[in-house]
């Protein structure tokens, strides 16, 4: 019987890839271990080896095909003498994005149309679709062209173009003096960056992930954040620490943590956590120009997502200004970074139930635009916060406190913080899913604060 060869997942987060090249043709004998094809992902090109042996019966996907989903059959292997089936089996059915709602018994609410807020750039501006990854790269390239003092350093940022390919092309454009591969010591190269910033340059320090930045925490907190103060204003530290933060997929307890609350605690730091590509670009450009140390928290899962980015020569986004993505009247959803995915999805689903949710993307956590949150809560009288981090000492806790102090009389329900579970990230797929905040958590919280 013919064996289906499926599009492989070459990394835990790979969802699709390009079938760059077939290295076998129909009719070839294939041994286990033979290289069948070259598969390109957004991170790397990899060789794909045969597991079983047989005759290559049929190549189902032509070489050069892009966006081939993981687990799609790409070829059929047959035994000697076996006929090749006429048609390819049906492509793997796509799993629905979310499980269907369990049958609701109550009378159906009247659906409403979610109100999308206007884009935060001048009306009529032309836009292009761009991934967060490309937007980050463009932001760095534009700032490096604009200011000779800006340079990038970190593990694998040069020749390898970044562990997540954020620095794609930068080495070619700017050379090894401004795109510097470092030894594997977060503490060491963060210290070098801090020293160089004290010395007048404007380093961008890439951490392969913010989990590894724990090694460098002394340099970040005790030196970068505090020296301007301790030196009586003489020595400042204009530096950007950036890299992926939070959970990716199946990378366990030490590689999945969200550090938003940690850094936001520290006076002297500014903390940015963008969701969309346009904000990633505009905020990173502002971060590089900022005379203070900036923690720029990215997200591995968002890197590959596409958004509208304005076609403007010098698009910057100011710190301390939240963005309203949906306008609403019944509840305020406050989030940032990947939490926005759940907030927006929840808002759309809640609209089907007739609940109008306003969705606020904080974009920067320090400074935090609490005025926008308060103004929204004065209108909706209810608030749910959404973040991926742990529940104790969370960003949502701070927002709750601000609302208690400054909008207490406007609240018709307690503020609910949707967060990750209070456990180290487990590895097993089902456990990992349980540990993370979900759209359903957000919907349940909204139902609670709206008493439905």
């Amino acid at each position: 019987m013919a064996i289906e060869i499926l599009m492989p997942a070459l990394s835990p987060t790979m969802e699709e890839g390009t079938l760059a090249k077939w290295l076998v043709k129909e009719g070839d004998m294939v041994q286990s271990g033979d290289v069948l094809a070259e598969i390109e992902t957004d991170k790397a090109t990899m060789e794909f080896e045969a597991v079983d042996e047989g005759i290559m019966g049929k190549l189902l996907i032509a070489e050069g095909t892009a966006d081939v989903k993981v687990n799609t059959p790409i070829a059929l292997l047959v035994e000697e003498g076996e006929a090749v089936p006429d048609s390819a089996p049906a492509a793997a059915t796509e799993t629905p994005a979310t499980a269907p709602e369990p049958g609701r018994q109550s009378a159906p609410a009247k659906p409403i149309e979610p109100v999308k807020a206007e884009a935060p750039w001048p009306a009529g501006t032309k836009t292009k679709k761009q991934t967060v990854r490309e937007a980050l790269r463009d932001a760095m390239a534009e700032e490096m062209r604009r200011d000779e003092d800006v340079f990038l350093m970190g593990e694998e940022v040069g020749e390898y173009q970044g562990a997540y390919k954020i620095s794609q092309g930068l080495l070619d454009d700017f050379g090894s003096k401004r795109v510097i591969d470092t030894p594997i010591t977060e503490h060491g190269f963060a210290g070098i960056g801090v020293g160089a910033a004290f010395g007048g340059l404007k380093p961008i320090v890439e951490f392969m992930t913010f989990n590894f930045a724990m090694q460098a925490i002394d340099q970040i907190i005790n030196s970068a954040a505090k020296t301007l103060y301790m030196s009586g204003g003489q020595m400042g530290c204009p530096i950007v620490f950036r890299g992926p933060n939070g959970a990716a997929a199946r990378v366990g307890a030490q590689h999945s943590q969200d550090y938003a609350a940690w850094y936001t605690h520290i006076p002297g730091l500014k903390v940015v956590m963008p969701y969309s590509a346009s904000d990633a670009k505009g905020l990173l450009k502002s971060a590089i120009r900022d005379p203070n140390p900036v923690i720029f928290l990215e997200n591995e899962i968002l890197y590959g997502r596409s958004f509208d980015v304005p076609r403007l020569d010098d698009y910057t986004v100011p710190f301390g200004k939240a963005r309203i993505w949906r306008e609403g009247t019944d509840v305020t959803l406050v989030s940032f970074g990947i939490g926005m995915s759940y907030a927006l999805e929840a808002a759309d689903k809640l609209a089907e139930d007739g609940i109008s949710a306003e969705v606020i993307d904080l974009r920067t956590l320090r400074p935090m635009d609490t005025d926008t949150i308060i103004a929204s809560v004065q209108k909706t009288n209810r608030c749910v916060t959404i973040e991926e981090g742990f529940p104790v000492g969370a960003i949502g806790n701070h927002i709750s406190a601000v609302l208690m102090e400054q909008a207490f009389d406007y609240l018709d329900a307690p503020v609910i913080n949707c967060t990750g579970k209070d456990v180290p990230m487990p590895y097993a797929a089902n456990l990992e899913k349980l540990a993370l905040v979900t759209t359903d958590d957000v919907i349940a919280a909204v139902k609670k604060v709206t008493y439905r």
Partner: protein
Amino acid sequence: MTNTVKLTFPQPPARPEDTPDFSAIDIPPAGSLDVPPLDVEASDSRDYANGLIRVLNDDGQAVGPWAEYIADLDADALLQGLRDMLKIRAVDKRLLNAQRQGKTSFYLQCTGEEAIGCGFQRQLAKGDMNFPTYRQQSLLIAADYPLRDLMGQIYSNACDPLEGRQLPIMHSSREYGFFSISGNLGTQYVQAVGWAMANALSGNGQIAAGWIGDGATASNDFHAALLSASVYGPPVVLNIVNNQWAISTYTGVATGGSRTYAARARGYGIPALRVDGNDYLAVAAVSKWAVARVRAGHGPVAIEWFTYRVAAHSTSDDPSAYRPKDEARAWPLGDPVERLKAHLIRRGAWSDARHVQAEAEILDEVTAVQKEVESFGTFVNPKPTSPSTIFKGVYAELPEHLRRQRQEMGF
């Protein structure tokens, strides 16, 4: 079966009840090492890393190739060095006294190590930056940092250039090439490497100097700094002050199986030299050589300054609990002030009488500034500066939420 595996727990040569014993320290004669070329490779610096560069012999004469290397350093320059050392000694004396009287919370002397900072600083140029530890106040003195600023910070009053935001002794002056001291040991060592890389990238011709004590060489910053300096080759002098004691921890606890700290630095591929830190001429000569090497673009260099911490670690420490009371007197490399004084007298440029007179003049000068600064308030008689300074310098610009908090405080 007998257990043949055992651990070692290094012990100092003498504890309080013992007679001081430095017999294990090998002191080669002055002038026995030559001057390497400026572009010497790490592999060719073995003798310098394991030996001890000395210029002044026991008779107070300057001898050997390193003496010739600084032949242009005339009697006036050496007298300047002597005055620098007398000045920091007077400052240390007066400020220790002030702490004992309750006028400041904390002080820390550099007694016995004065030659190192004083001799090194005079070889630097304007724009060069030291990343010091807390025992290099001698760098500030030799940079002619105003005594009023130095003492203002100790008393944390209106004369404090840092406006009450930093501990006493944690000085900071960009203009005088003295980077803000970090209380977390070691962090500044790798920052010196980064600063030097910035110098090289911007081509400003300036250099950096990192400083670390023998105890803090155990920190991972030391490793990261030496590795990074070896990898990128920036213009940095990496100084290791080996004063035998990290509070009560004997230096052997940080040396481990290494012969010297210089040898350890050399293992990273950086040329390294070990120097008699109580010999002002040796300090001046090796500093001059190191600064010239680094500024010429031949890459980093590491220097172990071999010395002895005569005073307590700080005003919070009583060393008689862990080492013999008279250990300092037994230190085989003597006292830096006495050695330079003897040399200058032998040269005919100085006398005992002039020395006594100079000591008195300098003490008077220091005491006068101290009295003036104390008139702005001390720990026992505080006259605090405006509370509004609490929000200054958190960020380069005053953010809205801090402006609001300042207003709420009434400023």
